[in-house]
């Protein structure tokens, strides 16, 4: 029994370089800064909604009415600033949890008007997990001047936990289809009818629908194949935990799935489509290292000393 527990613990908390967890922090933080910046007008649009539309969920559920607009604007701005500290690894013990909490409040508010979008769940969960780990022990302002710590299990378990969270979200979506759609969901008709109804709804609501979906609705075999592939990708998600190469195949399949959703339903899931949601599965420090090297070369080329001019 002890041996099994030790084996599980070794799998769950492998030695990992501090730079890897830090790279995930930098990638997720950079995405958050960009995404929150782009979404601010959307979040602010709710300030003009009548209070009667407010249907709070999650941590805002106890509220009777929407918080004052000024509070939301301040929380959103602070969330962006805290996310900047999170990304740079500046006073991380404060900015990490603060960024996570403020992002949670900001995005919960934007999902509290009768429609949950499901496009921000994974991002918020990832930031929440990173915020309570030692993700700024390397490649951060906090760690400036300190030697890089040796690979350690304390940098391994957060990455494994993030992989488990990602896998769980897709697995849950697959389970939901089987629970509520039944085995009939695999036949493809449910998926085709769902996409057809979604396209028509978009027309009725004066919005753009996918001409690709419209052109393909007659191809029943294709929707059968897409339905089976969707369930294989979602229910097969735990396989990605077995090996990095399997994870690579699975991640490509998931990105393909999200591209399909974008093309057929014009619904964008930016976090998984960026690939950053899957960074914990891989040697993310290679990506940030590559970006850092390019930036150094770019700076050297621009500086007079590195320009080679007399």
């Amino acid at each position: 029994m002890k041996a099994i527990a030790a084996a599980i613990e070794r799998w769950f908390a492998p030695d990992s370089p501090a730079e890897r967890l830090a790279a995930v922090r930098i990638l997720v933080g950079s995405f958050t800064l960009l995404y929150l910046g782009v979404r601010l007008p959307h979040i602010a649009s709710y300030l003009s909604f009548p209070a009667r539309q407010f249907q709070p969920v999650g941590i805002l559920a106890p509220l009777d009415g929407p918080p004052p607009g000024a509070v939301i604007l301040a929380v959103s701005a602070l969330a962006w600033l805290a996310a900047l500290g999170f990304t740079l690894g500046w006073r991380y013990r404060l900015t990490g949890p603060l960024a996570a909490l403020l992002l949670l409040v900001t995005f919960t508010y934007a999902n509290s008007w009768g429609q949950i979008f499901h496009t921000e769940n994974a991002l918020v969960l990832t930031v929440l997990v990173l915020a309570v780990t030692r993700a700024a022990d390397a490649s951060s302002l906090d760690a400036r001047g300190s030697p890089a710590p040796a690979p350690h299990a304390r940098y391994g378990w957060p990455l494994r936990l993030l992989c488990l969270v990602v896998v769980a979200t897709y697995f849950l979506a697959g389970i939901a289809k089987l629970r509520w759609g039944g085995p009939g969901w695999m036949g493809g008709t449910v998926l085709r009818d769902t996409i057809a109804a979604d396209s028509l709804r978009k027309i009725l609501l004066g919005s753009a629908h996918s001409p690709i979906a419209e052109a393909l609705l007659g191809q029943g075999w294709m929707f059968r194949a897409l339905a089976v592939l969707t369930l294989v990708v979602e229910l097969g998600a735990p396989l990605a935990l077995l090996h990095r190469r399997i994870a690579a195949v699975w991640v490509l399949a998931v990105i393909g799935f999200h591209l399909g959703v974008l093309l057929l339903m014009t619904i964008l899931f930016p976090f998984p489509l960026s690939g950053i949601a899957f960074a914990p599965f891989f040697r993310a420090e290679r990506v940030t290292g590559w970006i850092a090297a390019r930036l150094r070369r770019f700076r050297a080329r621009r500086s007079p000393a590195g320009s080679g001019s007399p």
Partner: protein
Amino acid sequence: MQAVNRGRDHCYNHAVPLAERVRALAVSAVVLAAVLWPLTWIPDRDSFPLSSYPMFAHNRRSAVLTAVYAVATDQRGERRYVPPELIGNREVLQARAVLDRAARGGKKGVAILCREVAEKIAAGQGGAQMSGTVEVQILRGRHDAGAYFETGLLGEEHVLGHCPVERR
């Protein structure tokens, strides 16, 4: 023997102080329990950031769609579908939520939303697309999406409420 030793050295038990190990296990247990908790939820329940991801999961038996939507008509009765930004914001699903809620609110709920949309159009928020419109109607329609994309024909519609666009 070497392999065994390597395994022991890499074991979290040996490398990390007990307090840190307990914290790691507690955080992991709480996060995983929270993420998996929606498995116990009933089909219509959803939340944020925890979710059972029910989108596209329901067992739709046909392509028939029942939807509430808004149209603006001009003097000749020609209709234009009111875009999401005049109902809620730019998100089409948000507009759907606002319209459904208004319909659930009965005649009063529909009248309030209708007036709000008409005021936005009167204020010029709909741009050229809404210019010349004189009335807003909130409709509930039941349409076969498959038939619509084949023939372009819509099914039954029922007017839930209507109001004039009063430009000053």
